[in-house]
């Protein structure tokens, strides 16, 4: 099943994103902890794009497509801002975050730990980030 959301680039829209994802995931049969992890990972990528690639410009938007399959859930996040290559980005070490009193840097670390696979593609019109979670066979 395919679900789509057009998310405007304002931080206040993140709650709307969570509602959208929660509606899809609550029907997935995944447990609460996993549902929360997936919502969090998708939100981290979107928040990153909203803040860093779009400078919170409410006229810009991000497109999110969720494909719930038999073996995987795929979250495809498309935007046309400054390309942010999530695969090349190096997450900081936790102790460096503490030592430097940094407030950021943990988000993409969470995404990497939660998702099974992350893909990134860019062409002149769109950047596409794909987050893939395998569903355990029952």
């Amino acid at each position: 099943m395919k679900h789509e959301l057009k998310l405007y680039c304002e931080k206040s829209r993140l709650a709307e994103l969570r509602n959208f994802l929660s509606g899809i995931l609550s029907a997935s049969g995944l447990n609460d902890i996993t549902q929360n992890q997936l919502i969090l990972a998708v939100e981290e990528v979107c928040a990153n794009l909203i803040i860093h690639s779009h400078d919170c410009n409410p006229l810009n938007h991000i497109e999110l497509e969720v494909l719930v399959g038999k073996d995987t859930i795929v979250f495809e996040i498309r935007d046309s801002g400054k390309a942010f290559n999530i695969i090349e980005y190096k997450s900081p070490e936790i102790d460096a975050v503490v030592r430097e009193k940094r407030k950021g840097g943990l988000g993409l670390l969470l995404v990497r730990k939660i998702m099974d696979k992350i893909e990134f593609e860019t062409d002149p019109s769109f950047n596409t980030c794909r987050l893939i979670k395998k569903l355990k066979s029952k």
Partner: protein
Amino acid sequence: MLSINKAPERDHLVITLNGEVDASNSVELDEVIQEAIAENASKILVDGNRLEYISSAGLGVFMSYLEDFNEKQVTFVIFGLNEKILNVFHILGLDQLISIKSTKEEAERALYEA
């Protein structure tokens, strides 16, 4: 939606989080902790019983004060987190860096018997 309440109790400060912490409102959490440090609080409890969600923006706020807590010898304890949120702390290993207790009683014991 997030509401934060800060109230003194005995010899400590209780910061109660109600709702969801994300990139849109983590600055509010930041301000409250900053205030607590400015007021020279030496024992801070965070009541997470009604915290429903936290993203890296909120976790980052806690992380950014750990050095200050060390330097100023502030005892900082979070309690009452639900299992979804506890799991997020666990994924990053933050439960190794921040004192987390399940109940208020345990949290108070950690403050006063340390």
